């Protein structure tokens, strides 16, 4: 199923939730409304024609213009087709719906995105930092992140 058909089906089903799509890019992607991402992913996961049962990678990203984003790379093992979904949220109140109920792997990926970018995933079973220590100031991968001079009294930059 080519990305164009996937986009048309989604457009037909969800209409305004599909905000933007770039289908001629190296890897076509579709931007969706972050308040209905779970519903769309559930549809993509359960619909027999799509059957996107394999969430390859969920990565946080900082677009450096005041918005954060989460990029979902989905693929289907049976139909062997792939699609990229994007959800963006403002930097001051970054909230995206969690899809960990659809794919189990999203649990840890979302925790990493929260740990690195501060994107809060609603209804995530156990959203806490996964890589950095729990009391680490700030979110390291944001473009405007300054390495703290001292961390718990230890001098950081050597």
């Amino acid at each position, binding site marked *: 199923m080519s990305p164009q058909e996937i986009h048309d089906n989604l457009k037909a089903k969800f209409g305004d939730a599909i905000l933007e799509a770039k289908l001629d*890019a*190296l*890897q076509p992607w579709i931007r969706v409304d972050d308040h209905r991402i779970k519903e769309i992913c559930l549809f993509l996961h359960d619909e027999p024609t799509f059957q996107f*049962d*394999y*969430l*390859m*990678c969920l*990565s946080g*990203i*900082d677009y450096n213009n005041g918005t954060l984003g989460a*990029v979902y*790379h989905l693929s289907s*093992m049976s139909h*062997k087709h792939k699609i*990229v979904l994007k959800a963006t949220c403002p930097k001051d109140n970054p909230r995206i719906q969690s899809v960990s109920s659809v*794919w*189990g*792997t999203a*649990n*840890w*990926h979302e925790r990493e995105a929260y740990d*690195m970018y501060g994107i809060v995933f609603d209804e995530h079973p156990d959203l806490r*930092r*996964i*890589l*950095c*220590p729990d009391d680490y100031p700030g979110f*390291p*991968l944001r473009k405007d992140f300054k390495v703290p001079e001292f961390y718990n009294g230890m001098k950081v930059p050597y």
Partner: protein
Amino acid sequence: MTESRVLPTNYVTKPEDLKTSSGRTLRTDEMIINMGPQHPSTHGVLRLEIVVDGEIIVDVIPHIGYLHRCFEKHAEHMTNYQQVIPYVDRMDYVSSMNNDLGYALAVERMLKIEVPERVEYIRVIMAELQRIASHLIAVGTFGIDSGAFTPFLYAFRDREFILDLFEMTCGARLLYNYVWVGGVSHDLPPTFIDKAKEFCKYFKPRLVDFNNLLTFNEIFVKRNAKVGVLPREVAINYACSGPMLRASGVDWDLRRDDPYSVYHKLEWDVVVGKGEVGTAGDCWDRHIVRMREMEQSVRIIEQALDAIPEGNVQAAIPKRIRPDHSEVYVRTETPRGELGFYVVSDGTASPYRVKARAPAFVNLSVLPEISRGAMLADLVLIVGSVDIVLGEVDR
């Protein structure tokens, strides 16, 4: 945990049915054990918080991040795409050739570079040699987890052969910086081909010995059958990949299903776990899938060694890499599973965002699912069979 060795329910002692002779209920309690970052069998700095009732594990909470070296932050500060490769080496330091290949393919797809045929064959040979070396470590340490020390040393003795081959080609034994964007750093030395053939001939009987010593040993079989069973659906839902996925009976290998490099030209087959001993997807299956994958890798290497064409390996290496505004996600099959690189470029020479989807990170997230109800000694085997490398889990 469906059809695994389901313990009889009365095995897990419930407080209300334990009475002392005087009729007073015996107070039992669960114990929380810290299989801490420093433990002989956590394969690195992984901390498992285990809630244990006697020997039976009630719940496991993995804590990771002790080896977090912010690979993604480093990648964003490099002045060109070539400099990220030494960092990609250090992500999964046990199979760094495969990491380089994954990253190089991602950047090449973004720059739309076509590498010469000889480079493709060299990359396949190196990736498969590294797969054998990495599986040898996984299989050797799995033997130690189950209590047999000697197979580990046999595995490492064979691995030395491969490290010599690597050192002869690119000068380093563990972290190579050999596969570059658009080619490889050095061409094969003249003696490489027959030395590699000699290794293939030497290695096959060694595998048979290893299997007889460890894999088919009844104690090892009884310790691993029906332990840590990962059913098909849970494996796909948790996006496990590599030997973990194939051991659960899913016939999925990126070298064949999402083809890259020249794997489609070589003829080899994907090893899938069938549950010969216990149920499909248990620790023994993951072990035997790795063992048989090594045999397949030797087959691939032999074919590639015969079919390697001539050519200049540095022809397609771009002098200055400055991709336009684009992003790409390319995935390759490393010994632990699907290693994906999501590379975003903003037109400048340094990458805007490099996200590494590490297979061990994802495979580890399924650990709590498969180890509830197992015994403490089983947990050690389950962690060993998942074959995690903490450099990749923590990045």
